């Protein structure tokens, strides 16, 4: 970007760990040429709590509340991945009602997470009002969680062999109400953001992630689907009762920030559809299978993969037959997306960097673990 003979110099800018749009304690070491990003080196680990080490020193059940603190925007998907892996090793199956309830919890978490995405993404682009609208709608979900599980954010309500409790009276009615309310509100977002010309020029064509590159970086979830790859674990490796539920795997061929945003907007509508099906099909019965208090699964290993709102959240559990796992590996989607970030931002401007980072919807809790 040098003008004529004027010599220019590259600047190294340290963005974060305290910065309004790094979505937590992320640090980006940027090399800038004027406004243009020529290099980006994400520095992570500020939130590292040694979760995988903790897991080796806790019983299986005791580790569940810790998993909530990974992707704290949608804690149920972390619970689910861990519980799924443990149940596979131990050969436990949750009763049908519990499986439906899990799906309801997971999908409500997905909507809550996507609402936070829309909110923060809009905020990154300075549309402050959409930020508060997203959180306003999310608050209704939080109230639903509070009513059922007694906690708003870190529910830890998916347990080995079932869920923590059955839904209380009146929950179904309120959930239906929420489902009916959300659709029109999303249409409103479309008017406020999706169609807005300024929003479009800021997101369309920005931060292109070609599908083959996305797969090579092991990106998943809306980030990969926004590049046109229809990879959704709810379809590819159905867990719980997803195989019985009708929904579309949303993809978008735009490969840019707008594509990723649109996928998430549409996924919220699909999630509403899933929740309504679950509420209609919800069978009677127990919500917790018989599980020994001191669970000692036989030696072996299992891989639990869950489609979290961010992508493939997986849990690799190795058991040696004891009460604690021998090894728990937490595979966080944001970690892989973060690795792809430098490639996506190269050549874009500062303002685009914020948009691209926002469009990946990272959560530092699961990146740093």
């Amino acid at each position: 970007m040098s003008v004529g003979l004027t010599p220019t110099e590259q600047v190294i800018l340290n963005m974060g760990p305290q910065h309004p749009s790094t979505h937590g304690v992320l640090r980006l070491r940027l090399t800038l040429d004027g406004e243009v990003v020529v290099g980006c080196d994400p520095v992570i680990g500020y939130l590292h709590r040694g979760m995988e080490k903790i897991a080796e020193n806790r019983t299986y059940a005791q580790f569940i509340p810790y998993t909530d603190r990974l992707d704290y925007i949608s804690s149920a998907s972390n619970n689910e991945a861990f519980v799924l892996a443990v149940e596979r090793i131990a050969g436990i199956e949750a009763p049908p009602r519990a499986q439906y309830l899990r799906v309801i919890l997971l999908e409500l978490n997905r909507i809550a997470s996507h609402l936070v995405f829309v909110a923060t993404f809009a905020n990154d682009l300075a549309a402050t009002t959409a930020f508060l609208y997203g959180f306003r709608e999310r608050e209704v979900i939080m109230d639903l969680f509070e009513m059922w599980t007694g906690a708003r954010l870190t529910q830890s309500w998916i347990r080995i062999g079932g869920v923590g409790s059955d839904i209380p009276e009146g929950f179904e009615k309120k959930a239906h109400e929420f489902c009916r309310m959300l659709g029109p509100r999303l249409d409103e977002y479309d008017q406020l953001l999706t169609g807005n010309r300024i929003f479009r020029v800021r997101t369309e064509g920005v931060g292109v992630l070609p599908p083959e590159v996305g797969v090579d970086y092991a990106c998943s979830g809306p980030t990969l689907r926004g590049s046109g790859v229809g990879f959704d674990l709810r379809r590819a490796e159905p867990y719980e009762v997803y195989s019985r539920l009708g929904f579309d795997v949303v993809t978008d061929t735009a490969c840019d920030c707008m594509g990723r945003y649109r996928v998430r907007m549409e996924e919220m509508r699909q999630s509403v559809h899933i929740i309504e099906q679950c509420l209609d099909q919800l069978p009677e019965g127990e919500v917790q299978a018989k599980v020994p208090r001191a669970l000692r699964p036989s030696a072996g290993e299992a891989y639990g993969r869950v489609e979290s709102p961010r992508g493939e959240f997986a849990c690799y559990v190795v058991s040696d037959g004891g009460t604690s796992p021998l090894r728990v590996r937490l595979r966080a989607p944001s970690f892989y997306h973060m690795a792809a970030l430098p490639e996506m931002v190269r050549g874009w401007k500062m303002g685009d960097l914020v948009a691209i980072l926002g469009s990946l919807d990272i959560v530092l809790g699961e990146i740093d673990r």
Partner: protein
Amino acid sequence: MTTPATKRESYLAEVLGGAWSIGKGLAVTLRNALLRPRVTEQYPAQRPKLPPAWRGKMVHKRGEDGRPRCTACMACQKACPTLAIVEIKGDEKKGRERRATAYVWDASRCLFCNQCVEACPFDAIKLGQEYSMVAESREGTRFELSELLEPAEEGEP
């Protein structure tokens, strides 16, 4: 840094379309400003109505005799993922007759995961409605049995 080829609109259509799209956004914000209710909770003045399932400060239940139901069996301590139940002591009686004399729960360690409640064989504890556990020191977040015990019922000695 390639922009996918999109159909280029005419200059004027682009300008007018852009203005129209912003106008739609303005209509949304105006509608919200004039028609939608304010959702903020005025916290200290207005307290949240908590559902019965709320997981807050630990509460020790009393038995019919007014004494704590806790028998100091240590099941909750074993179940706790974070060592939040620091100390449990019982009197000299054995088994079901035993009663807790000391019980220290550290709110700053607690994850409010409910596993202690589920582990309790005597239904002696629950996570209650109290959500404000503010303290000025770490010591202040440790609650003794007397602070955790639910208030005695009316009419009892």
